[in-house]
């Protein structure tokens, strides 16, 4: 049995829209809406979706960089942070949150208070275990800090884990030699430590951002579109660097991107999001070979393949992504779906396990697998 690293249950993040003279809340942007994610230790989970679908928000909520509106987050729940939490977690695991009885719901409420993120000292411990790499390496590095200061900051605050499990805050020569070793590992030079961020190219800056993130040897690393600002040849360099580092330090990755080709090269499992909801979740090969949800199918067929001799049918979706402030009722994808029928407009589909390890939220998932489902007039 694989060890659960992060488990999020019923996670929601709504951003209020303020308007009017008095700044009242006019409505909400439903960025992440009732999402359950479980990430196991040592794996790479890919998170894909179009811009505005809430993938970055989900990544931030998982790191508690944004406070969730509702829902629960557990970090290493089986490892028992406290007995109370692990008991509650066990209880939760056997039941779906919606099926819980009244007394149990009370315990869940307690869990919310007791869980990792509501507790400041716990939060500090948590911060030593997780890190994030942002999309734009230009804006994520302070232009007035030398690279050595950029990389040293997390080490000075959080320390570096030693072999016996304790953390040590490095100083002076020890710190410098540690950083030199670090930066060499990133494929950069030792004297790069004494330069400013603007002296580097995009690829090098992203290497520095990665060096800063892994300098405290985190267990869980969120990569928020780490290569989308880079060229393909540099992207390949960064991706292979990330793979090497994962093997060496046994990190768990959450890889957020809109580039499906990168997902396929990097991840073990893929989560597809659309308008704040998870629509499909499966092992990478399974998802790419037999995509079930119509949105995944369209997304896969829309990627241009660098092979001019391969002619294939491209499923071009009509229209744009609807506004997450005012998502369509029923299935959120029905406005663009080629299979949409009346039930899709009224009822929201639940995530169902169609095959082993392949979870889909679609009313017609079974028909689509067997190829019985015909296109509706919506197309």
């Amino acid at each position, binding site marked *: 049995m694989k060890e659960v690293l992060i488990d999020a249950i019923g996670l929601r993040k709504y951003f209020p829209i303020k308007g009017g003279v008095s700044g009242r809340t006019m409505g909400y942007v439903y960025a992440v809406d009732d999402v359950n994610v479980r990430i196991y230790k040592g794996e790479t989970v890919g998170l894909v979706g*179009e*811009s505005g679908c809430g993938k970055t928000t989900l990544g931030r909520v998982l790191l508690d960089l944004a406070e969730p509106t509702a829902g629960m987050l557990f970090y290493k729940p089986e490892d028992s942070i406290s007995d109370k939490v692990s008991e509650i977690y066990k209880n939760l695991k056997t039941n779906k949150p919606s099926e819980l009885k009244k007394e149990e719901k009370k315990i869940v409420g307690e869990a919310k208070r007791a869980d990792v993120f509501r507790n400041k000292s716990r939060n500090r411990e948590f911060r030593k275990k997780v890190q994030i790499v942002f999309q734009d390496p230009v804006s994520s590095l302070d232009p007035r800090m030398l690279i050595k200061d950029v990389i040293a900051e997390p080490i000075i605050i959080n320390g570096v884990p030693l072999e016996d499990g304790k953390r040590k805050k490095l100083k002076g020569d020890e710190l410098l030699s540690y950083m030199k070793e670090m930066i060499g590992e990133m494929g950069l030079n030792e004297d790069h430590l004494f330069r400013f961020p603007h002296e580097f*190219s*995009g*690829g*090098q800056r992203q290497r520095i951002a990665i060096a800063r993130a892994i300098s405290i040897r985190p267990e869980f690393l969120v990569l928020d579109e780490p290569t989308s600002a880079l*060229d*393909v*040849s*540099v*992207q*390949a*360099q960064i*991706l*292979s660097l990330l793979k090497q580092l994962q093997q060496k330090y046994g990190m768990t990755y959450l890889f957020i991107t*809109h*580039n*499906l*080709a*990168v997902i*396929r*090269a990097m991840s073990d499992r893929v989560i597809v999001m659309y308008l704040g909801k998870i629509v499909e979740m499966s092992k*990478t*090969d399974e998802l*790419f070979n037999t995509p079930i949800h119509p949105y995944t199918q*369209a*997304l*896969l*067929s*829309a*990627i*241009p*393949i*660098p*092979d*001019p*001799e*391969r002619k294939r049918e*491209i499923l*071009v*979706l*009509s*229209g*744009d*992504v609807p506004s997450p402030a005012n998502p369509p009722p029923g299935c959120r994808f029905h406005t663009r779906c080629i299979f949409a029928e009346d039930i899709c407009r009224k009822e929201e589909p639940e995530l169902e396990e169609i095959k082993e390890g392949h979870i889909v939220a679609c009313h017609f998932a079974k028909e689509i697998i067997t190829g019985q489902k015909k296109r509706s007039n919506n197309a």
Partner: protein
Amino acid sequence: MSSMEEVLVVKNLKTQFFIYEGVVKALEDVSFTLRKGEVLGLVGETGCGKSVTAYSISRLIPDPPGRIVGGEVKMGNLDLLRNINEEAKLVQKKRIKIKHNYKVIRNNEFFFNTIRGKYISMIFQEPMAALNPVYTVEDQIAETLLLHNRTRLLKIMKSASEHIPELERWRESGDIGELQGEIGEEIRKIKSTARGNESVRIHQDLLIEGGTRFSRKKEKYEEMLKKSIEHDQLEDKLLTDPDRNSQQQIIKKLAKESKKINLIKMSKKMKRNTKDPLLIEARRECFGLLESVGIPNPHGVLKNYPHELSGGMLQRVTISIALANNPKILIADEPTTALDVTVQAQILRLLRELQDAIGTSIILITHDLGVIAETCNRVAVMYAGNIVETAEVKELFRNPKHPYTIGLLQSIPRVDDPNKALKTIPGNVPNLIHPPEGCRFNPRCQFAFDRCKTEKPMTVEVSEGHTVACHLFSGKVIPE
């Protein structure tokens, strides 16, 4: 394929940027040809000069700091860079200084205003930044139409004013028949592109209104039409006349009577249901253009401001502006980079469809080899200001020759081939202030030998239509 008509010939184009740190040699002898009705892909990494090439062709390089220092860009008989050297002189003292000749620059600017938007138009990467936030979509499309297509608009109005009874009868009965002249052509176009009766009705209403307005002040508008036709004839002469001196004279004439549009006034008129038939016809054309690029509810979108539309919709609007005057050459500078994959698929399909319908030649600039493979006929691969390889799409992907092209193709992750090992090109793009001697790729090339470090490789033809600039290959040398 080689017998096809060449619409644009670029030869030894050289663009440099003069900045404090030195001279950035952004383009070094870029040569390629664009044939009629094809899509030519320009591919390469950031900073390799793809966009600079596009901007140089349409003369949009900001000066200072940039300058086109040499080369030829020929559209038919006309050299678009004809007197580029007269614009400014380089004075070499302690540091390089530039002396401008403002008279020549002004004349060239007027000259290029007639070319840009009519014969060569562009689609930019960021649709949000390409459109003016204070004017409506309608204003911005109408501007290009009024600047370059006055004759056509007036001709249609004139023709409509002669056929008002028929148009009114059709509006009552709801069907459309055939007519002669400009209006007949227009009606055939409406029939084939309009979406539903509602849209046909809008077309008819605007045609009738414009026609009536035209006939009320017939003399004034006929005069306008006459002038505009004369102007068009001059322009045609400029494009076909092989003689440089007579070209010069025409340009001087064009510069004298160059039109300017006061966008503020025009926008105000457009908002207050205008009485000018020219503007009414421009509005109808805008409506038709938005329809042809697949915007839902085009009549509503006409009155929208850019911030009210999504990225995909905005890119459709910029495409409709670029195609408003049926340009000979369309330069699309990363048209889909800012968009999502599903919207990218929509836009690329649209570009191909419009190209089939209008027959424009397209230069598609992108860094995405997938987009190249699915849309282009021919590809030119750029590296550090040089074109290193040119070939037909299939040939390039099947049989890449230049080490850089090979590296580039190996470094893309593939959706359809997960087990492919990602190979990387070591090193970084060189600094173009001090580019490497010889072949600019030699510090990163695994096959580099002594000659690469000293001698710049010539472009050679390895097979028909496939040219490479690399010392590893031999073949017929393409004359520079």
